[in-house]
């Protein structure tokens, strides 16, 4: 008997649309992810254009408007969120601060994720001895108080955006390293990895083509959570006076500066805090959407939404 008639099922699926269209449609299906993406685009726009457009306004002191309360339309839209203790408009400052904040957070998260993941992949797939060596390195970083490390590095090298990124990146490496290694140890025993080995695939190919794509969703979720952590850690450094130095500003620094006025002028810390929360929340929503949209076995959850027969 020929084998042809056995495979008629599964052939009746509709033709697949092109990739960009498909992703737009999936994005439209998840309105939260769409809103998150729009907000993140706004933040990026603020980071790119903010300092050029509002740099001067954000620095100009106005002692009559000290701690001016929010929602007073008489002063103009820049004062809508109120003003800080030196009478500088908060809205302008938040927009301008977006650049440093995003640069530090993105820089630190990307650097630590990149280094941590690479080391984790090596530690998980290479020989036992190499793996152990890398893990002990991670233990050293984790057991060393991160604040102490920051103080030493920033004291020796001097505070600057690059050095803050460097310090934050180093302290966050073990998070990615340990997660990646644990996942790799599990995935390398899966059958499709054995199948690739039987075909003669090189370790590099197995790690990059077969293992990494499976680990990636976990890592993106981790990275978005870390984004918030890094923003707040940066504000702690700024609070100690070894992070970003005024007149440079970041959202974290704004929160730190507002702390002493918290009982009298809550808006000083509230607005930058809200900016951090919304950014992190958007990143989380978007990464959640991405996890589903990039997984061929889960994609249907988005694609069936918004269809009339669902």
């Amino acid at each position, binding site marked *: *008997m*020929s*084998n*042809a008639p*056995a*495979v008629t*099922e*599964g*052939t009746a*699926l509709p033709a*697949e649309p092109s990739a960009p269209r498909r992703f737009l449609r999936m994005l439209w299906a998840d309105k939260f992810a769409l809103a998150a993406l729009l907000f993140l685009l706004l933040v990026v726009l603020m980071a790119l254009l903010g300092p050029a457009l509002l740099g001067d306004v954000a620095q100009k002191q106005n002692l009559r408007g000290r701690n001016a309360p929010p929602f007073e339309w008489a002063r103009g839209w820049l004062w809508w969120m109120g003003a800080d203790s030196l009478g500088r408009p908060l809205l302008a400052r938040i927009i301008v601060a977006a650049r440093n904040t995003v640069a530090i957070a993105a820089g630190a998260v990307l650097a630590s994720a990149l280094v941590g993941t690479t080391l984790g992949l090596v530690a998980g797939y290479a020989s036992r001895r190499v793996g152990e060596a890398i893990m002990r390195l991670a233990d050293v970083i984790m057991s060393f108080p991160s604040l102490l490390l920051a103080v030493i590095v920033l004291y020796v090298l001097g505070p600057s955006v690059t050095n803050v990124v460097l310090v934050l990146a180093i302290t966050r490496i073990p998070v990615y390293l340990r997660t990646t290694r644990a996942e790799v140890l599990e995935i390398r025993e*899966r*059958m*499709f990895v*054995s*199948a*690739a*080995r*039987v*075909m*003669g*695939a*090189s370790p590099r*190919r197995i790690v990059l*083509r*077969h293992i990494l*794509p*499976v680990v990636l969703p976990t890592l993106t979720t981790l990275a978005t959570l870390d984004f918030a952590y890094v923003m707040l850690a940066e504000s702690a450094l700024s609070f100690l006076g070894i992070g970003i130095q005024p007149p440079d500003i970041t959202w974290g620094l704004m929160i730190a500066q507002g702390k002493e006025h918290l009982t009298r002028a809550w808006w000083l810390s509230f607005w930058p805090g809200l900016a951090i929360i919304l950014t992190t929340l958007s990143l989380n929503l978007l990464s959640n959407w991405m996890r589903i949209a990039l*997984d*061929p*076995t889960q994609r*249907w*959850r988005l*694609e*069936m939404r918004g269809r009339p*027969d*669902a």
Partner: protein
Amino acid sequence: MPDHLLEVRDLSVEFHTAGGVVKAVRGVSWHVDRGETLAILGESGSGKSVSTAAILDLIDMPPGRITSGEILFDGRDLLRLGAAARRDINGRRIAMIFQDPLSHLNPVYPVGWQIVETMTAHGLPGARARAEALRLVTRVGLPDPAGALRKYPHEFSGGQRQRLMIAMALAMKPDVLIADEPTTALDVTVQAEVLLLLKELQQETGMGVVIITHDLGVVAEIADRVVVMNAGEIVESGPAREVYHDPRHPYTRKLIGAAPGKGEMHPPLARAEPVLSVRNVRKAYGTFTALDGVSLDLMPGETLAVVGESGSGKSTLARVLLRLDEPDSGEALWKGRDLFRLSPAELFALRRDLQMVFQDPTQSLNPRMTVAQLISEAWAIHPRILPRDRWRARVAELLAQVGLRPEHANRYPHQFSGGQRQRIAIARALALEPELIICDEAVSALDVSVQAQVIDLLDRLRREMGIAFIFIAHDLPVVRDFADHVMVMQRGRVVEHGTVRQVFDSPREPYTRALLAAGLDPDPDVQAARRAALRTERRAAGA
């Protein structure tokens, strides 16, 4: 209409899924009486488990929805009872055992505690429950019953765990026992023992048994009546003997025809120079000896079946031959070169010649790659085989060769059925144009009718392309129509090795005979005769 112990009438259940509404079962009716065994026979996706899930209130709603029907038990419609009343019936009056006992036993409690808990949950005082647990564990035949109660689930073998599940299910002396594929995960010899135990317990207690299975052999061994399901509907029902000997529905006929072990056996091959000769391979994991001096010869184009139960070392043999695991000692000459002593570069070149098809295509195909990517990866790894611009055409060719369509190339593995996935895995192995393919339980995860198709496909590839196969299986009938030589393994050793005719018609070793005898014949009459023979044998031994 006479009253039955448990009756399902006109049951329809639908599920809301990605592809819209799926009608899992449509208008299903069956019944079971006291002291009777009903088998629900069907392949995966036939809806055979759905009606029993409805009986035990195990259907999640939503996404599931019972659209019509009633389930009569004790004159009451279970579907109209409240949740508390259902719980009171579940476990106490209607009990269930599952395919995989390990996932249904809590790993952090001793099994004795878990058996006692089923009874105390239904109101039995603790002391009586403990005494009853001991009696049950003794009855289901576990060695050292008192000690067994204190052990944890992982300390038992698969067959012993299923006995524990049966003890637990019988704790409240249920009127109906539902068994969902109770022996599918077990070795054939263990399967026979568990089925025998179920039969004896049924005779003692007079309960009604509903057994859900895909295996005609299980039906033949244990069922009085059978209900055959396909695509959510009952296509045929009746006494097991009648259905087997006089199937009315074409689907039943197809299912019975697909049962392996009835075709022509291969004639013995002419002697030739072996392409692979393995000598004295040993491999131990810690103190466990997985391979204990295994030797074999394989001629070009030959199919060698390696048969053994779990723990016999047959999969280790495959992994060692492909250098997925390193052997402790021994040699394997492939065209005169020792596979175990190749440098990484030489091994890489040889990978082309030796390929493998794994047991479960769901796991052996990377879920994030399309079919085209999966197959063409072979050429990405070995670029000399095929230039990149010819990949698409060759993928289409290979897909056609294994009975799939070229337009399947852009789909992902999860969009295919189990049998289709295994075809993709075979196409991937063929992409390297190998001379030997090792199939590790390549069809045991598939439905019987699909099994037959995949074996047909492999047999055709062997004839057309002269590929040699090492075909690893736990089940003898599967290899009967397909193998040239059969090698039976037990505890890391080869206990019997011969042509397919020798092994099936005149087995020399007692273990081979036991394996052959334990394999269930799909014919109820054959099974009945075997049981009768066994009884006389026992009586003779007792006298």
